[in-house]
């Protein structure tokens, strides 16, 4: 089962390799992007994954700030998810760049780092910091568990509390990246960071719920139902606020219906025969609203057989809404009013699919290792007998 899954992912990772090669050799002309729609599938996925990465904090936040005991144990799994998600973000960014071979230009000292002027540099800082925090925090905890030593609460909790605040910042800065451009009226409003955070905190925990249910199913690790109830409550609250914000946006834009509303109108209704995005918008709305209503019912919410499917609907709905429903129509029409439609090319699908596969690959490896260590199956004393790579497999086997 495990190997089947890994092989399945490996296939897509190979496709990613091929896609990246073609894109590096020929330039981004192999994508469906053009000067009119210059931000596309890669950045849409990037923005969504930053949200998912930020959502790891939803697991951490209740555990430590509200001292929710049940969540303590599984916090580190959330940190692993954050690492996998940030890795995906970095891969999406390098796929989006025209010249990844010139990435060194952005580093301070050897290049030029235009901080604090350029919002992108803030994003680089917070994402790198978040990755570092999660790696340090997560691996420190796991290492202590692995060696059986006590965790230094002062150090570890400081890292955790900083990570909680930092997680909010990563997605806020990503929102600032797009909402500080008056050239793009669909994005240029102060609601954007709130919308980002709420959609992230609805999609992220949905994924976490699904992952934790899988962990419960495939490993001996015990995760109390309480954890799922807390997470699903977070999902329904945040989804509710997100839908409220969407409603607010629709009313604000469509009531006076100015030239600045063209992007939203194009998304919702199409424009003069160009309506590629319309089905996406309404599907996303249906998924989000439907899930929201269902999740409001406590009996449904607490039903752990139904919950993963609703969470999947939330995840997919928000993915569509943030990607096809926000990032793409934000650049349509161009600031001077030209409409152009965009369909990702096969190479883009290959690369995006591959990055998701890499993300899941990393996530699987990390979770497997973490679960193994947490369950106590993998311990320092046995290190002499097994090589490092064999541990995780043995953790499953025994």
């Amino acid at each position, binding site marked *: 089962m495990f190997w089947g899954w890994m092989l399945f992912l490996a296939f897509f990772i190979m496709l990613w390799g091929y896609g990246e090669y073609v894109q590096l050799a*020929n330039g981004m002309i192999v994508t469906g992007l053009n000067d009119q729609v210059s931000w596309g599938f890669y950045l849409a996925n990037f923005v969504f994954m930053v949200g998912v990465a930020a959502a790891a904090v939803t697991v951490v936040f209740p555990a430590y700030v509200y001292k929710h005991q049940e969540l303590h144990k599984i916090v580190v799994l959330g940190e692993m998810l954050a690492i996998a998600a940030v890795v995906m973000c970095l891969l999406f960014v390098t796929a989006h760049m025209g010249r990844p071979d010139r990435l060194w230009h952005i580093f301070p000292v050897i290049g030029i780092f235009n901080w604090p002027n350029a919002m992108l540099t803030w994003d680089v800082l917070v994402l790198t910091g978040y990755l570092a925090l999660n790696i340090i925090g997560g691996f420190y905890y796991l290492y202590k568990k692995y060696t059986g030593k006590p965790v230094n609460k002062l150090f570890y909790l400081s890292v955790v509390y900083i990570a909680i605040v930092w997680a909010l910042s990563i997605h806020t800065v990503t929102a600032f990246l797009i909402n500080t451009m008056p050239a793009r009226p669909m994005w240029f409003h102060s609601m954007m960071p709130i919308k980002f955070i709420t959609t992230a905190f609805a999609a992220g925990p949905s994924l976490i719920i699904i992952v934790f249910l899988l962990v419960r199913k495939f490993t001996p690790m015990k995760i109390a139902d309480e954890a799922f109830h807390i997470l699903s409550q977070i999902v329904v609250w945040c989804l509710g606020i997100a839908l409220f914000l969407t409603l607010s946006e629709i009313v604000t834009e469509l009531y006076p219906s100015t030239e600045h509303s063209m992007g939203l109108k194009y998304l919702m209704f199409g424009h003069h025969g160009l309506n590629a995005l319309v089905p996406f918008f309404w599907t996303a709305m249906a998924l989000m609203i439907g899930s929201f209503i269902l999740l409001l019912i406590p009996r449904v919410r607490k039903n752990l057989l139904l919950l993963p499917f609703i969470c999947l609907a939330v995840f997919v709905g928000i993915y569509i809404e943030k990607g096809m429903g926000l990032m793409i129509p934000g650049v349509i029409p161009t600031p001077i009013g030209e409409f152009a439609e965009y369909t990702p090319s096969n190479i883009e699908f290959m690369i995006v699919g591959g990055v998701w596969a890499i993300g899941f690959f990393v996530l699987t490896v990390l979770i497997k290792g973490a679960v193994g260590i947490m369950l106590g199956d993998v311990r320092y004393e046995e290190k002499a007998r097994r090589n490092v790579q064999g541990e995780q497999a043995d953790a499953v086997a025994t």
Partner: protein
Amino acid sequence: MSKLNNKQNNKNSPAEEVTRRDFLRKAGAYSAASLTGAAMLLSPKPARATKNVTWAEHFQKNYRLMTDEEKKEAIDRLVKRYSEEFGKTVTVDDAPAMDGVLFGYALNIQKCIGCRRCVKACVAENNQSRGDKQQIEWIRVMRLEKGKFSEKDRDDGGYPQDFGIQVGGNAYKPAGVVLEGQHYYEADKVPEKDAFYLPMQCMQCEKPPCVKVCPVRTTYRDPDGIVVIDYNWCIGCRMCIGACPYWARRFNWGEPDLPAEEMNPKTHYLGNRPRMKGVVEKCTFCVQRTRKGRWTGCVEVCPVGARKLGNLLDPESDVRKILATKKVFRLRADLNTYPKFFYFMD
């Protein structure tokens, strides 16, 4: 379950046997390598691959931070590379901004006839990529319809409907200028009777949003007011394209297609030298010309003399005279970008 047995067997002699993991790795490597090879053979070859880019060029600094010697070296490298690629003597100028000059531009929209010669002259002068796959034009001319006044059923289009507001115009078919410009207009002869034209290009703002968002400071304002790009430093993140309210910037999605016989060999480092894939480019007020005192390509070609370029710091220049005597406006002035590209009517 057979997997488990295999693993347990491995425990005893890890050195000899090929583990499943190793096999997968090798298989993956084989397929990756063969796919790579196949890809190289099958993938379309770019029109003019910049394969002669040396390591020195790849690792050069940002132009502004270079010493004079480094600049000279960089330019020599480029001259050598371009001359080889295009089979003619290419010069790459590095003229700095002239003292006491701040370029301003004025465009007479009363006169513009929408002939698009400015667009094509700019392309002839500035070595943009051309052809079917990747055509870059820095100037975009929009056609604005003067509006229809005599349509039937115009008078009863209320807003909102059916609330007694059905007369006095039509909110859904408004009279007067149609705001949404047309970019792909085709006409037999211009100017057309029921349209006027608005060309747009980089406005060379004094507070450029593109400069602010560039994470590596590859695009910046030079002392003569021109917003320039160091093409060798651009990382292709396209934040600037997102931020520009005038849609003035273009991206080289693939390797540019520039036939050698159409290449203009008189280039400037920050201006019209041939670009490479993955970098942003835009109108530079023809730095290769203007820093030598000559007018830009678009100003010279305009058959109706609608375009004027001059030194804003010289009260006798065309542009200053226009600002002094004509009614001028700028686009999206509400965004406080302070463009130096003025529109006027005469």
